[in-house]
């Protein structure tokens, strides 16, 4: 994977701003199968992560990959984030990283 450019922190709503670019997000796993994971973003949207999730998969997973469209990510890197995760903190991080403090991240 090309790691030369940083991946933008996104939630469901911000994904559309980075279509075609590298993004990262944390999803709450709703359904998983061998080739993809259906998850809920921290702001309540449904997002699909295509690729091979880790086995076993915890309730929360971070995916880093390229945004295909406004609700799909072609995931290249998967990280189990455990079963407890504070979504609201992450959500606010995404907002700040794309808004007021964008210059610090990208």
């Amino acid at each position, binding site marked *: 994977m090309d790691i030369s450019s940083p991946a933008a922190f996104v939630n469901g709503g911000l994904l559309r701003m980075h279509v075609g670019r590298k993004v990262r997000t944390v999803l709450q796993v709703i359904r998983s199968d061998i080739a993809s994971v259906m998850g809920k973003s921290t702001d309540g949207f449904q997002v699909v992560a295509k690729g091979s999730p880790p086995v076993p998969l915890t309730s929360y997973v971070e995916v880093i990959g390229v945004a295909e469209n406004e609700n799909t990510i072609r995931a290249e890197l998967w990280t189990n984030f455990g079963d407890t995760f*504070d979504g609201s*903190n992450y959500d606010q991080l995404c907002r*700040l990283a794309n808004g007021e403090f964008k210059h610090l991240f990208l």
Partner: protein
Amino acid sequence: MPVNLTRNAISMINSGDVNSRPLVQVVDIKLIGNSQERYRFLLSDSESTQHAMLATQLNEQVRSGRVKKGSIIQLIDYICSTVQNRRIIVVLNMETIIPEYEIIGNPKVITGSEPETNKPMPNNNLEPSVRSTNNRYGAQAPANNTQSFRPTIQPAYQPPPNYKIQGPIMKNEAPARIIPIAALNPYQGRWAIKARVTAKGDLRRYNNARGDGKVFSFDLLDSDGGEIRVTCFNAVVDRFYTVIEVGKVYLISKGSLKPAKKNFNHLKNEWEIFLESNSTVELCSDEDGSIPRQQFSFRPISEIESAENDSILDVIGIVISVNPSVPILRKNGMETQRRILNLKDASGKSVEVTLWGDFCNKEGQKLQEMVDSGVFPVLAVKAGKVNDFNGKSIGTISSTQLFIDPDGPEAQGLRNWFESGGRNTASISISREIMPGGSKNEIRKTLAQIKEEGLGRSDKPDWVTAKASVVFIKTDNFCYTACPLMIGDRQCNKKVTQSSNKRWLCDRCNQEFEECDYRYLLQVQIQDHTGLTWVTAFQEAGEDILGCLAKEMYLLKYELQDDTRFGEIIRSRLFHQYLFRLKIKEELYGDEQRVKITVVKVDNVNYTAESRYLLDTVTKKIPIKKQF
């Protein structure tokens, strides 16, 4: 301003009264003595005179002109002895009240009993402002126009006029007018007060340089709400101790007025009455309804939260819990009883009240029985002392009075509030928190801010929270040998020394034992992104930082001498990040003031909570209430 010297001061001193601290005038000063510089005063109380020797330590006052002929002085420390068949006063301590003044009255050398000259009625509103200097005026100008005042000031000092007192002498036997307690002052002429006894102190015996003595005091309240303390010494105690009863009304006259001792006397009066051999105390048999039984100024518990430490106040509330008495060892080695109870009022706050000594067995026991049987009584505390050790609490002192279920509108109002819902409303305790503020309004600071903002420099310690990492732990003297014995509900913990037979000795408990306890006294350096600082961690905090008991570390280092393992443990505990609750206070070390920081609590960082905190500070919404 007309001045009254203390009447009959000379004869009082001559008859042995060396406690009344009278106001007298220096009529003459003579330097005598062959080898030593000694000053001899001629003192006057406006009628009689007496020689007095000035103690040499006061010589400077004469040399500098602070006291001179004509000065009005107050004798503070003095004795009267017989020298060559004459009575001579020796002045050990005095204070010049007015440096220059016309000679008052008609003083002559005392020969025997003198008939009293006629004095007019006292002036009600005389202010004791005799500290004015430069008082050369001869004509008297009364403070107000309502009363004429005694014409004793003569325009200039002249030799005593050559008239003898002849003819029938009438002593003024008319009873002195009753005046309000608030008007009492030492420069008053005759006065009388009518008041109710609100408190009666114990009879106390003492022993000082002048010998043995006994003393007791009682407090008075009059119909205008004025209060004053009355004290009796020695022979006067015998006269009045059994006469005075709490709750009864008395007519009191002919006592002397002196400044009140503020650290024992918490009444709102700058003066205190001292009864003497000629004082009168008369029981008023007719009940005076105009004089209340007690005077309170209750503060709501919510106001106590901001009251000053050590201040004295009255409080009233419903007793919601009473704890059993525990014996407590005081600093002076004496054991006493302590009981803690909780008081709640309509302000939504509750406070801990600590009963000491007899209060535990008397009122404390009664309150315990009442609460155990399901009753929640009203308790009024008069003259309780505010303590700010753990939040704010109230403690009893010797002059505290407790009233269970008193009459009065405040008690009734409280009871009504309690019955109609107050019972079930939750109250926030202003006492319970070990760390003032608790988790509701924690103050977060960086380590650099502690120095920048000069925390710990005021007279109260500062309590803050800081997120930092342990970077260094001092391994010399990381713990001390502590006394494991229990005192009441707490462990003694005083440092113990080893006696010759390898046993441990505690000075406070006065006992020897085989095994001592080991408690942490850790010096640790902590660091955050702004700076670093030394802190001290005691037992609980030490255990959190090192992750094991002080005893284990002690054994590892000194008995097993396993430095390798010891070092491993220490290193493994470095660079952990915690939320430290710190108590910061400036203290005197030898000659210099140093800011001492103590770790009161060590908390692991909760990442969710901390993230939220950081997000809030970033978006400038620093929380007043933590939402965790």
